[in-house]
């Protein structure tokens, strides 16, 4: 696939963006066009982009169809990150399709799809990602637990879930989004150095001053373990930039 990214002015990449509507509250303009406009406005070069409805679909293939179609006019800046549900038939095709489309990663949602991160579905997904050189994005939470809709009952990922995931295959590289400081520390220091090197964390759920969580994690866990992430269209993308500025 043609590399349409070479001419971009900066290398700030949002690893935690999505598009599409959410069943539990209205997200204003959750479209690729709005995302591109916000990236432009805020000086963010590109975004890895998932598809919100696919979190709740059983058969995610239709969601991936929609994601790829939506992003096609914007591929210079928006890199699709399709969903893969290894507990549902046909998931291998979605993984192959992600590779063929030049996607950097795939997303999966164990709590929503109903599989164990230490179980056979996860093992197969991890092996597939490793074989195809696709990173796997796992999301700890979609929304703040204090504001979830009463029908929104999927569990948040625990440290045990993430430790099991990183241990299940030596070739699996994980990007974990929306993790809080305690979870980052628990998993990072509950992993071998080799396992920890295969983990990256986005900054969307880490706070700045006066607690200075992000700055502290830079020192203890290492700056190289963190990637930029906004959690668009749920959250103001400005927040990722302000915490980055205040952590320097």
């Amino acid at each position, binding site marked *: 696939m043609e590399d349409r990214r070479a001419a971009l002015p900066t290398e700030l990449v949002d690893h935690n963006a999505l598009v599409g509507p959410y069943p539990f*509250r209205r997200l*204003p303009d959750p479209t690729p066009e709005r995302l591109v406009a916000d990236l432009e406005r805020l000086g963010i070069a590109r975004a890895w982009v998932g598809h919100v409805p696919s979190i709740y679909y059983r058969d995610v293939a239709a969601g991936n169809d929609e994601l790829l179609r939506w992003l096609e006019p914007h591929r210079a800046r928006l890199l699709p990150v399709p969903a893969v549900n290894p507990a549902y038939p046909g998931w291998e095709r979605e993984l192959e399709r992600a590779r063929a489309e030049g996607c950097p990663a795939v997303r999966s949602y164990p709590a929503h799809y109903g599989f164990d991160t230490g179980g056979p579905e996860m093992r197969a997904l991890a092996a597939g990602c490793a074989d195809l050189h696709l990173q796997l994005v796992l999301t700890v939470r979609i929304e703040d637990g204090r*504001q979830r809709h009463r029908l929104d009952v999927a569990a948040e990922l625990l440290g045990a879930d993430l430790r099991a995931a990183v241990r299940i295959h030596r070739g699996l590289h994980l990007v974990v989004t929306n993790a809080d400081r305690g979870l980052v520390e628990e998993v990072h220091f509950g992993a071998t150095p080799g396992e920890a090197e295969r983990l990256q964390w986005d900054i969307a759920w880490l*706070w700045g*001053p*006066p607690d200075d969580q992000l700055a502290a994690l830079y020192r203890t866990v290492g700056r190289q373990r963190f990637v930029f992430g906004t959690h668009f269209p749920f*959250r103001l993308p400005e*927040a990722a930039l*302000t915490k980055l500025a205040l952590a320097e």
Partner: protein
Amino acid sequence: MTAAPVAGPLVDVHAHFLHERCGTSDWAERNASRLAAGARIGITVHIASILGSFGHTSPTYFPSPADVSAGNEAMRAIARAHPGLVRGYVTVNPNYTDHAVAEIELGLAAGMVGVKLAASRRASDALLDPVAALAAERGVPVLQHIWQRRVRDVPNQEISDALDLAALAARHGGARFILGHIGGGGDWAHSLRALATVPNIFVDLSGSGVDRAMLELCLECVGPERLLWGTDLTMDTGWAKLRALAAMDLEDEVLEGIRWKTAARLFRLSL
């Protein structure tokens, strides 16, 4: 995005400082971090409270009278050390009514500018009436810690939501209240819908929540004239909301109102 401070006054109506009796060894570092980040953001006045010992010798949201007094004294000391830059709320636990009233009298006489209610007693409870009445008499606002929509009890707090605060505000029409941290977790839309017709409750924008659509609904339901800017425990998210407001094509007068003018009127600050 430029990281440079924007011009003009900026009042943070929801700040906290720590002190040596909070049981944390880095209390001075955290305070310094708040001030340094404030300088970076462009905050010209931090209006702050200390909730007793923040859990060290009594619970954060149910502080003992001794811890309330110690915290308020520490708050006054910080304000004295940073004249003009830091102002203080008098924190009270309304379960100890006589003590609460005495602390307010003492604090206001020493230059504190508002009253802070944590989550020691539901906002609608009659025990808050003496506090609200005294605040109205002295013309200072009451900042109430709020859980955005109360659907169940939670540990370690007697939580209140916008409806609870509205009940108190209805009984004290001459008092002015601030609904704490609309971004502080919970169903913020519930709070904003509930406050649409409650003129003596203002909304502070602080909290870690930076949901898209929140600011728009604040403007729609409460209006810019009842919005106050603040940070609480996450200054990065406060700054993000300030940036987002600046990107919303609001009139300069509206933005200035949210940034400082409304706060200056409410707290009678000379800026």
